[in-house]
């Protein structure tokens, strides 16, 4: 991909643009990483294959975003520097994606809550004035549509399956619900990106998001949580206690053997 055109055209501050891209990309990174823990441990071979596929899609997106950030950086940087060598506070993913793989119900619910947002975001981001982001979004739409179909279908199966599955997945829905609202929080970078025609006004996605999610939950015979108490912080780099462990696994090689090629 040729990225050079962007520096000239883009009136937006490059650092802000990079922050905005991280906000989007880090979600895919951490969620992909969570999937990576599951490979070979799922309820069936078919779901193992599907979850691995989604993980591959997410890491593919991550690489495109980080390669772009590396291009935008003044100093010499690679996608791996960005993926592996930041401090916890510099990761901008939402808290939702770092929540653990408690059971398949949590995995699916976390995925569905993210996918609905992710698809809406990609559908808007394809119109970004930033050609690279637009291209990544266009490619992502196909992938994320599949993710949403997968997680949505499973949510229905679990919700409207057996009594046990219904109870389990309802618990997952209740526990993960407080992490949904952060998806729509606008940071300074996001606001600037939106004003420049580069980013997406996530706030506008909120209403259609809750409408769509609530409809599916009802179809899955699940209750839509009424709680109005939500968590946030991820976009500011203030994460949950899970994040440190995710990073210590993920960064292990790069931290233990600094500066080596693999």
């Amino acid at each position, binding site marked *: 991909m040729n990225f050079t055109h962007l520096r000239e055209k883009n009136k937006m501050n490059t650092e802000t643009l990079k922050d905005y891209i991280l906000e989007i990309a880090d979600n895919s990174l951490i969620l992909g990483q969570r999937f*990576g823990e599951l490979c*070979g441990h799922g309820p069936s*071979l078919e779901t193992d294959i599907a979850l691995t596929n989604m993980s*591959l899609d997410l890491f593919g997106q991550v*690489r495109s975003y980080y390669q772009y950030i590396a291009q935008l950086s003044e100093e010499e940087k690679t996608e791996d520097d960005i993926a592996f060598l930041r401090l916890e506070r510099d990761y901008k993913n939402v808290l939702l994606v770092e929540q653990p793989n408690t059971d398949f119900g949590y995995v699916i619910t976390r995925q569905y809550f993210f996918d609905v947002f992710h698809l809406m975001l990609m559908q808007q981001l394809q119109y970004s004035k930033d050609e690279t982001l637009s291209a990544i979004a266009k490619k992502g739409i196909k992938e994320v549509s599949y993710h949403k179909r997968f997680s949505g279908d499973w949510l229905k199966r*679990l919700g409207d399956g057996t009594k046990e599955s219904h109870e389990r997945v309802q618990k997952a829905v209740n526990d993960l619900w407080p992490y949904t609202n952060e998806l729509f929080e606008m940071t300074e970078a996001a606001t600037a990106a939106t004003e420049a025609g580069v980013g997406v006004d996530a706030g506008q996605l909120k209403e259609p998001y809750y409408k769509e999610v609530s409809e599916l939950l009802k179809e899955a015979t699940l209750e839509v949580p009424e709680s109005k108490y939500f968590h946030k912080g991820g976009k500011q780099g203030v994460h949950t206690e899970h994040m440190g462990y995710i990073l210590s696994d993920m960064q292990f090689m790069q931290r233990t053997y600094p500066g080596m090629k*693999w």
Partner: protein
Amino acid sequence: MSEKEIKNLEQIFEAKIVRDEKIEPKDWMPEKYRQTHIRQISQHAHSEIVGMLPEGNWITRAPSLRRKVALLAKVQDEAGHGLYLYSACETLGISRDELYEQLHSGKAKYSSIFNYPTLTWADMGAIGWLVDGAAIINQVPLCNTSFGPYARAMVRVCKEESFHQRQGYEIMLTLCNGTPEQKEMAQDALNRWWWPSLMMLGPTDDESVHTAQSMKWKLKRKTNDELRQQFIDQTVPQADILGITIPDPDLKWDEETGHYDFGPIDWDEFWQVVKGHGPCNKERISARVNAWNNGEWVRDAAMAYAEKQQAKKVEKAS
């Protein structure tokens, strides 16, 4: 069926095999042929899915995004292999659930190699290079085996395995061209995986109980010892290119035979691992059992949901 009729069917069956024609699931086959194939194909399928575990162990710690994606894709391929091998096996009249049950209870075996731990990143290279290398040698002849579904599955499996092997070798090559620490990591991995890889090709010919019958059915084209020699002859020059040393002081080229001579294999270790007492046998099986048990409510939910949907359809139609 009269004895004469059976004799007749047997003759048709034998003649087909001699003519290199495929036996298909609906064809008549001797019960022993069926059982042997269930045993071998399921053993192969189990090896694929247990084999996901030692490599899956490094997905979250892969050193770069490129390596992470490649490793994920590789482990996914293994799940895919498992899937179509189980499917091939199911055509012989046994269900995947029954096959899992045999794995979980210890009745069915899987490749002994996966009972060794993956301790460093270099193990991802060594497994690809050596373990997949040995697997290919074992499996390429199976693309022409007599049972149709198995032969066809193996064509695809072999293509992917050979990609995995190159990928593993490339990991090793990168390490060996890297820092002294990286090269040491590669050497250490070779030291630990070399002998188990040789064992993976099975007991020596005089100890191998199934060889004769399997050769007749083209389920095997070469003996274990022949395959092992082929593997060694192929791998030694590759280690030379890497600049690392195969941990066998007796290894030397024999001009006369045109093969490498090699030192004695510790068969006691092999049988210990096969009998369930290797370094990770318990971990591997309990990981599979846990995945299965923890997934039960999910599978039940999927069934219940499907039944409800079906009932709704019927209700609508009537």
